[in-house]
Structures are given as C-alpha cells and as structure tokens.
C-alpha cells in the first residue's frame, strides 16, 4: 500500500515539474514559429506575392502560433488566451495580426523589418529560458518525487 502511495506521490511530483516547465517550452515554440513565419512572410511579400492563407497553408509547423494565424485569417477575431504570454506580449501579437497583409509591399517589408528584431530577441530569450529552467524543473521534480517516495515507503 505504501509502495503504491509512494509511486503516486512520485508521479504527481514529476507531473507538477512537467507542468511548470510547459509554459517555457510553449513560449519557446511560439516565438520560434513567430520568427520563422516572419522570414517566410518577408520572402513571400518580396518575391512570389503569395497570399497570407497560402503562406499559412505551406507553413510546416502546426502549433499555437499557426492556430492563431489561421483563426485570425479565418474570422479576424481571435481570443488570445495563451497563458504563457504576458499582457504586453498579447498586445504586441494582436497588433502584429492586425498589421500583416494590410499594406503594399514596401510598407509590409518596413513593418516586418521593425518587428523581426523584437521577435528574434524574444526567441533567443525564450530559448535560453527553456534550456535553463525547463530541464531544471523536471530534474527538480524527479528529485523531490524520489525523496518523497523514500519518505513514504
């Protein structure tokens, strides 16, 4: 009985650690896709003049950022309830969605140029955070889980 309880405590601890690390992974993934999309979009505007929906169709990542873009193109109103983004970041993303596709080639390239550096910095920061803290949370949760398992058993 104690063994089973100890195992449950261990699993719970690992799950909590995993849950704590998820937002960091999601943020990393979100800004990675955001950055990648900016590059794809810049090329599309400069060269083949593909429409946004065509660019999104060919976008090879199906994650939160893709869902967000897809929803926005589909019905222009999106509920940006991604808990791992701060309020300022949500405002920035909404501004981005409202601005892309809304101008001629030159104005769009100017805009992407401006946004690119901001997103690139965010991406780097998120990557560092995910690398540093996400692994740490999981390792810590395994360690705490093991300790509790020993105590319980």
């Amino acid at each position, binding site marked *: 009985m104690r063994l089973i309880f100890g195992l449950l405590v261990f699993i719970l601890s690992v799950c909590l650690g995993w849950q704590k690390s998820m937002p960091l992974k999601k943020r990393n993934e979100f800004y990675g896709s955001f950055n990648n999309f900016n590059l794809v979009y810049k090329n599309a*505007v400069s060269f083949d*003049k*593909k*429409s*946004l*929906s*065509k660019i999104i169709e060919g976008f090879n990542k199906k994650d939160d950022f893709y869902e967000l873009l897809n929803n926005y*193109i589909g019905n*222009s109103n999106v509920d940006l309830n991604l808990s791992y983004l701060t309020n300022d970041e949500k405002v920035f993303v909404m501004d981005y969605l409202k601005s*892309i*596709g*809304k*101008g*001629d*080639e*030159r*104005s*769009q390239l100017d805009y992407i140029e401006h946004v690119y550096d901001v997103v690139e910095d965010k991406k780097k920061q998120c990557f560092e955070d995910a690398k540093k803290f996400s692994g740490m949370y999981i390792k810590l949760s395994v360690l705490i889980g093991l300790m509790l398992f020993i105590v319980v058993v």
Partner: protein
Amino acid sequence: MNLSFLPVDILSAIAKVNCSVLNEIRLRKGYAIKIILDSQMFYLTAEGASGNKTHAIICTESHINRIVDVVTERSIYAHIERIKKGYLSFFGGIRIGIGGEFVFENGKVITVKNITSLNVRIPHEITGCADDVYEKLYKSGVKNTLIISPPMQGKTTLIKEIVNKISESNIGSILVIDERGEFFNVKGENIDLISYADKLFSFEFGIRTLSPKVVIADELISQNDWKCAYKATFSGVKIIASCHADSIEEVAQKDFFINKVFERYVVLRSINGIASHKEIYDKDFNRI
C-alpha cells in the same frame, strides 16, 4: 455566382434578390447600399430590393473592410497592382471598383488607403448574344472591329461570346488580353489568355510569342491602348476591341482616336444590360 466575399447581412439580403438580373452592388460608407437590377436602381434592405430608402442597409466601415479583406485574402501586397489601378477582382470575373484616398509618389499611385466606396460589378453570360454579329462580321473572316457603348451595356459579355464563337470556328489562335480578370471563363483549345498584364505588354509580347490570328482586347482607354491596337493591325493580326462611348461620333472625337484602324464598328444599345440592339458601321462610318 460566388458572392461569398459579402458580409453576412448583405449576403442574406442579396439572397432575396433575383441574382440573374443583378448588375451591380454599390457601397458607400455611411450611405444606403444600392443595387442595380435590370439596369434599374434599388435600395438593398434586409428583405431584398426596395424602392424605399427607409429600411435600406447602411454601408459601414466594417462592411467595406470585410469585403476588401476577403477579396484580397488579407494580403493587400498580393493585389496591389490591381488596387493601384482602382479595382479588385474576385472569382467568377467579378470586378470591384475602389474609391478612397489614392496615395501618389513621383506621379504614380503607390497605394489606396481609407477606402470609402466599392462598386461590385457582376458579369453575366448570355449565350447567343453574339450570333448576329458573328454572322454579319466574322463568318467570312474576322475584321478589325471596335465595339462601342457606355458602361454596363454588355460589351464584355458580347466580346466573350464572340471569342467563343470564333474559337469554335477553328480559324487559328486567339489571344485574349484580359487586363482585369473578367475573361476567366473564356477557355478553349484555340484561346490564349494573358491576364492582369497591361495592354502594352500584352500586345507586344503576346503577338510576338503566341502568334495569334486574332487579338481580343476589352476597353481601349488610353492613347497607349489605341497605339498598341494600331500597331497590332500592322502585324498581320485582326483585332476585336471595345471602347466606352455613346456613339460612333463620340469615339471619333476622342483625342487619341486613330482613323481606319478598325474596319467595322458595332454600337450597342442595351435593354436591361443585355446588348439587344446593335448598329454596325463600316470604316467610313457608314451604317451597314
């Protein structure tokens, strides 16, 4: 007819209208939406067409934004060349004229902002409307022809039918210069289509590379268009084109009119947007 680009309230009102005679939908920000049915103007209400303005649907900024967003697939940059020329086009040959603030740089339009009005023009196919013209003008060989009428009298519809008939007669390749994407449904084993390119490019490169026997060009508007048509007649091709005017005299008065380019003139008088009455003239403006 695909009108899916319209906002829901307008679309459901249009569904109550006889779309087979719907020629235009006119939207002006802050004003009642008007529709042209059978060449007659009505207001658009939630219950369909009405002569009474009281319950008309008022065009809002969001109506206009929604239409522009859907038609451009939220990608203005991909449609900017057409926008600079003052229109958008949608599947099915639907052309949407744009009114708003045109932004110029070095004398050229670079974009349009604050769009305040849209004019949705809906094309119709009328099989057989070119039978009489074909019999009289083209059965024994194509003649350089200019089709003349004011806007919305069925010039493009007539030209489309002429293209189909000439194509069926297998006289050789036909080059269709489709500057505004209105000839999307003109297809055939003898037809080459150059879409969304200007006439200067299309005439020069089309004649050189596609070796047509007949060139079809809708709406000769500028001096350059006329010059292109004029030059083409010396390239061994026949031309069928159209021009906005009320009469043959009005065409002859245009600054850029070049006499003897066309061997025949067809003046359209339409009833309910269908080119039902056609007057044919020879190169010396004598009625045939």
